[in-house]
């Protein structure tokens, strides 16, 4: 299909759908971007009361209601750790699930149940457990555990999608050619799985970065970004929220754009070297 020069009509129909979906996705985001440039007197709804960069400055100004930069730093750190652990644990588990083993059904349904168990209660229960053992709750202990009960099922199911129809012959061939288990994993299995693993890493990072209900009752005495935002909307209202959204998007585009450019350059150089 790929080498047909002429596109079938479905291409145009789906391209249209894709465009509409992106419009739908970015429509309200656009509202965020516009409203973040509200004048100092304006609020979080239309009309605009002048334009300014006041609310961006507000994010960085110390002593405000919410300490966004610090909370942002903590969220990034926590999300990175969650993402790393999720990748390690769910890749291993995904491999394990390729065979029948006793208890596989139990683990599977535990994962499903963990996705639906009301998040507030998961956090609450973990908090009670920590108290029982006299452990100090904190972002990198109890909150980390609470978030893993959320990202791991996602990671596991994503790995199911990755391993589904994964051609095991490659692995077996590697074994037959004398590769050790480690060599096989390093040189055969992981490269094939890499796109999927990156997906899990990105996905679990996003889930953790945005997690509220599981974290709130076991966060210890430091807030993550969502907790700070939620606290903020409970007693104040300002376009600072939207400024955060705009900055996040800008930074995402910047990071992704740079990475992509680097990868493309690297590929070109490699291609040139091969020639």
């Amino acid at each position, binding site marked *: 299909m790929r080498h047909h020069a002429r596109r079938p009509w479905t291409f145009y129909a789906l391209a249209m759908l894709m465009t509409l979906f992106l419009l739908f996705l970015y429509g309200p985001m656009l509202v965020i971007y516009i409203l973040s440039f509200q004048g100092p007197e304006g609020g979080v709804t239309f009309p605009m009361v002048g334009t300014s960069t006041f609310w961006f400055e507000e994010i960085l100004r110390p002593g405000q209601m919410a300490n966004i930069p610090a909370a942002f730093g903590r969220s990034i750190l926590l999300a990175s750790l969650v993402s790393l652990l999720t990748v390690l644990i769910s890749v291993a588990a995904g491999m394990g699930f390729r065979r029948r083993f006793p208890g596989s059904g139990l683990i599977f349904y535990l994962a499903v149940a963990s996705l639906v168990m009301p998040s507030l209660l998961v956090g609450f229960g973990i908090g009670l457990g920590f108290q029982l053992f006299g452990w100090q709750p904190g972002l990198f202990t109890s909150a980390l555990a609470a978030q893993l009960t959320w990202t791991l099922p996602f990671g596991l199911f994503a790995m199911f999608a990755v391993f589904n129809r994964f051609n095991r012959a490659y692995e077996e061939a590697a074994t037959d050619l004398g590769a050790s288990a480690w060599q096989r994993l390093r040189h055969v299995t992981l490269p094939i799985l890499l796109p999927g693993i990156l997906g899990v890493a990105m996905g679990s990072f996003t889930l953790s970065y945005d997690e509220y209900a599981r974290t709130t009752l076991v*966060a210890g005495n430091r807030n993550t970004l969502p907790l700070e935002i*939620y606290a903020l909307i409970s007693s104040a209202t300002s376009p600072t929220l939207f400024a955060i959204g705009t900055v996040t998007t800008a930074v995402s585009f910047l990071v992704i754009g740079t990475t992509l450019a680097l990868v493309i350059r690297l590929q070109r150089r490699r291609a040139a070297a091969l020639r």
Partner: protein
Amino acid sequence: MPHPGFSRRHLLGASIGAAAGSGALTGFPTIWAQNIREITLQHAGLTVTALPQIAERASKDLGFTVRMQASEGADLLNRFLSQSSAIDVADVSITYLKYLVGRNVLQTIPLSKMKHWDQTIPLFTRGEYADGRKASTEGVAPYTVLYATSEEGKAFAPGPTEWLTSMPSITNADTLGIRPDLVGRPIASWADLLDPAFKGKAALQDQPTIGIIDVALALQSGGRMSYGNKGNMTRAEIDRTIGMMLEIKRAGQFRAFWSSFDQSVNLMASGEVVIQSMWSPAVSAARTRGIPCTFQPLREGYRGWGYNLGIMKHLTGLKRDCAIEYANWYASGFEGAVIARQGYYSCQPELARKHLTSAEWDYWYDGKPAATELPDPFGKPSVKPGEVRDGGAFSARMGNIAVWNSVMDEDRYLTRKWNEFITS
């Protein structure tokens, strides 16, 4: 910002004096030893009080470190149980005291250690207004949850004792917020909330006790219901009220049931809603956007509420002494001035006054027109010269409480009925 006569040395001297006076039974003088520098007090609070400027100032004045963590009120309540060890002192709604006392979460504070007790408003200490009138006892009146029967703090005492469940800090009174440009007629009573003229343009707070009390105020003044105690209804009263609320909901009266400050402001600012019960800072927030919005005094009076500062059970020794010292600092005015600039009242108003300019005091507490432009706590202008606070002076607003926010005896039943109401 003037803060006459207030310095660390001043406080230090006072506390040593107090300690000497109390016979140093608790080893109080040791508090000023070198090792208090290593103490960190974790204050879990509301977004309006858990501000860095308060923490910095307290740390500077007291010699130990205070750190703030802001969170939403209901989350804060549950954190008392899920992670009590991560909290040292906390803002506690007086209604939540009904849930907490008896659950072994807070420790009592000896009344003798409270330095500013004589400056605390009698509404909290005795249930009386400043002029000696008895205040409403409907709902959870602050003084009814202030005193504990014993040091263990397992139950409330009906009258003053030597043990406080927590220290009074913030109070305010809520009423209806309206869009004067859109309601089209004068609003004078809670009954107007249910006027069919505002069909599809009224809102309630999605919180069982607050929501039902607002409706009860409206039903009662409309002559459609009468209550023994609106803040503590019987099952029959709950049934009848919820029944009428269902009819009103089906008739399309309510545009929304809001659950956050942000939501209530946006409902009003966008014109989705023109009449709803509101917090006064939410009204100010709508107004600073150039939207006409009034915090409307009503003839039946206000729905009052308050927050106290509580000390967690697990604090002992030096850290406990520091927490008590912090509570005294908290009452001493700096924090009161910061919350005043957001439209909330301190329970020790005369101490807050020392940290306010006279123009600020006149506007926020005395109901006089603002003499100059007044800032919010972050230095941003929030009140224009000549503006007058809705509802007037502190004594007028906090002198006319119809009912207090509440947790009812039939709380369990009410929650069920409320869920039925919201889902239908």
